[in-house]
């Protein structure tokens, strides 16, 4: 007979809290996944407070993009992939899905890189940790009873809070921080541009758009309550970015002055030493592991759903493999490719995490342009089309990412110029 495991009361209260808070807030908190933490740590350590203004800019961008996705979900009740297919046809869908797949495989492998990095911090080989993590999460998903596990992972992610506490332990000069956050500085170096793109790409993600829209559509939110949803999304985005800013402040205050560059989990964890001393690597690992596993439990599956939705393949975990072969193939494919990539001997884990997020940003304009076009379509959105303000900002953001990409490519191919 199966005995059900019961959590203690106080723990269940916390779970309850997590089931009540909305998808917007959670999507945004999950933005601080393994590649997210890595990207912010690398950037903060290398460029100091000078990177903060980008976070301010991105916060505006993320609020804008996530709000559009949420609004589309609430108005149409459909997923982003559905709308793209129905409005733009097969060719455009195929292109958009290829971009989504590439971006999401990149982000998934970055999560496995996170797992590998944590393992290696404790001297455990990635050939053990990565397949183990993949197998564990894969089985949990395929068996479908991952609700409790998910909550546990979310709680592990709370250790990202330690960055906030660390900042208050270090007591940095808030005047300088504020000044740097509001004065844009740009360097035309390819490493800098890669980092800028990575920070954009880890915050405003194609999968974030698809996931948020799908979860709001699934909830069947009433348009009368849309103001609540909007508030949840805005608050969530801002919250996620506050945490990101604190990671940058921490690394900028601890690692940047010493000239320590973050190339491994060991160096990244050092940023937490003012708070946790010799326990900093444990604290760092808990957060990183929770974030990676949480993202692995959501990302490949939501990508698979989006793709099957766009092309009309049978989908759903409640279907046997024989009835939905494409669905299971895509899912397993994403998992296996991501794991194998991380197992390539000698691949630099932190560098890969950063680069995967730059790729995300480079692919983002494709999705952004489609989303902007959908959100302005009267046939789809009725009276809920974008306000002019949102359009100006949306296209500006797309243009900015595009320009940064061009600058990066020019810098890479014309190093002498």
């Amino acid at each position: 007979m199966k005995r059900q495991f019961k959590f203690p009361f106080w723990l269940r209260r916390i779970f309850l809290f997590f089931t009540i808070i909305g998808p917007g807030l959670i999507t945004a908190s999950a933005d601080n996944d393994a590649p997210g933490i890595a990207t912010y740590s690398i950037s903060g350590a290398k460029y100091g407070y000078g990177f903060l203004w980008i976070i301010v800019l991105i916060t505006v961008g993320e609020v804008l993009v996530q709000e559009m996705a949420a609004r589309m979900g609430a108005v149409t009740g459909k997923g982003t992939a559905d709308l793209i297919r129905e409005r733009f046809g097969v060719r455009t869908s195929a292109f958009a899905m290829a971009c989504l797949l590439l971006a999401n495989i990149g982000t998934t492998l970055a999560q496995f890189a996170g797992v590998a990095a944590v393992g290696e911090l404790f001297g455990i080989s990635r050939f053990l940790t990565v397949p183990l993590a993949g197998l564990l999460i894969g089985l949990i998903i395929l068996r479908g009873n991952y609700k409790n596990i998910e909550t546990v992972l979310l709680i592990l992610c709370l250790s990202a809070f330690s960055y906030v506490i660390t900042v208050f332990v270090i007591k940095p000069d808030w005047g300088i921080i504020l000044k740097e956050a509001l004065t844009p500085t740009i360097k035309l170096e390819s490493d800098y541009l890669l980092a800028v793109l990575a920070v954009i790409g880890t915050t405003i993600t194609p999968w974030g758009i698809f996931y948020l829209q799908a979860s709001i559509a699934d909830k069947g939110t009433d348009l009368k309550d849309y103001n609540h949803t909007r508030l949840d999304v805005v608050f969530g985005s801002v919250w996620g970015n506050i945490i990101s800013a604190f990671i940058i402040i921490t690394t900028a205050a601890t690692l940047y002055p010493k000239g320590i560059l973050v190339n491994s989990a060991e160096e990244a964890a050092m940023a937490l030493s003012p708070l946790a001393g010799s326990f900093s690597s444990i604290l760092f690992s808990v957060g990183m592991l929770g974030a990676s596993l949480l993202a692995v439990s959501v990302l490949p599956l939501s990508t698979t759903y989006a793709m099957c939705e766009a092309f009309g393949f049978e989908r759903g975990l409640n279907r046997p493999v024989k009835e939905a072969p494409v669905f299971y193939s895509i899912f397993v494919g994403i998992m296996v490719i991501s794991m194998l990539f991380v197992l390539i001997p000698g691949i630099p884990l932190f560098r890969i995490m950063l680069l995967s997020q730059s790729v995300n940003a480079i692919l983002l304009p494709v999705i952004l342009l489609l989303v902007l076009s959908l959100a302005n379509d009267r046939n789809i959105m009725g009276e809920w089309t974008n306000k002019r303000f949102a359009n100006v900002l949306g296209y500006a953001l797309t243009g900015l990412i595009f320009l940064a990409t061009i600058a990066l490519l020019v810098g890479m191919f014309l190093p002498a110029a």
Partner: protein
Amino acid sequence: MIYLSQLIDQKVWDGFGHVVGKIDDIMVNATEKSAPPLSALVLKGAPENKTMIDAQSIASLWPSVTLKTDITKLVPYTPKGHELLLKQRVLDQQIVDTEGKRLVRVNDLQIARKGEQFFLTGVDASANGLLRRLGLEKVGKSIARTFKKEAKTHVIPWEFVASIEHDDPLRLSVSQSRLVQMPPADIAAILDNLDSHTSKALLQGFPNEELADTLEQSSQEVQQAVLSHLHPERAADVLEEMDPDEAADILADMDDQTSERLLTLMEDDDAEEVRTLLGYPETSSGGIMTTEFAWVPYTYNVEQALTHLRSSEEALEDEFMYYVYLLDEQERLKGVVSLRDLVTAPLDQPLSKWIDDDIAQVTPLTPQEEAAYLVAKYDLMALPVVEPESKKMIGIVTVDDALDTVLPTAWKKKLPRFSGK
């Protein structure tokens, strides 16, 4: 066979070899249910009064689109209100294949010629259709050949297609009549994959009984979404049609105010049964039992029992009737007989043969796991539930409901969700 994707953007030539324009869309007469005839070509880049051309004047569609007459003699088509635009309204949308009983996406549309007329014959939902749209049909075929398989184009005949677009009441009602005939479990599976707006619109027009059957098989999300958008009077009617234990489960998931309101709107005896069930914890035998079961007075003989069962409302509502329970005047459990044994016994045999003091049974508060254990141990199809004080039999736990604990329902859930219910 001609496909819509091969016609879109094709040049249209008149009888004298002049280009009139390019095909932008094709209209069919939507009132025809099995194979709608083409009614007009919608052109782009054509002179102003020639943007819609009557399908009567088409000479051929393949290999090139030619018209019978000279451009100056073309009579423009005037829409009559029953037209359906294929590219705009059908291509790339989701539809239900009522033959294959699944939700598919329209990758392409098949058009066929019969005599002088052209007809829309079916929907191509196969991967071949996708490849054709991408211009990769040949690549697909050669890949299939290397795997020694044939790339099959599966076309669903138009008469088996149910459109689910919720802003088109006319077509939706046609679809509903097709969908209603599908097994409830298949409809439920389709609903689970549909967006909430569409599934609501689709079910609005279902008859109460079919709607109740479908909802019983649906996921909790669909149940709640659909019921919350029905008029309360109708929601109560639908709940009456459901098994009381299913209705109780659904009401238990609603907030107290809503469920109380629906209960007051329900017929008194239905509501009372549901209220009793609602009183038991969800994971107890009382929470999963059904109150509809077949029973006969224990003093009867076989013939009387069979006659009684034919006219007993409770027996008729017993979904499976694996067993017939023998009760006394106070509705206390005296014995049990399988329907098979009852039917095969001589008519004059008294039921006392099956009276037994030691019947496997549970109380309403027995945990679900224990009920499952008993069902498995004694190889039963259903287990009687008996009130401990009055010894009254109040319901049965069927094997499928009992085993839900051992095979958790959670694995049936689909999308990973961080939040919500």
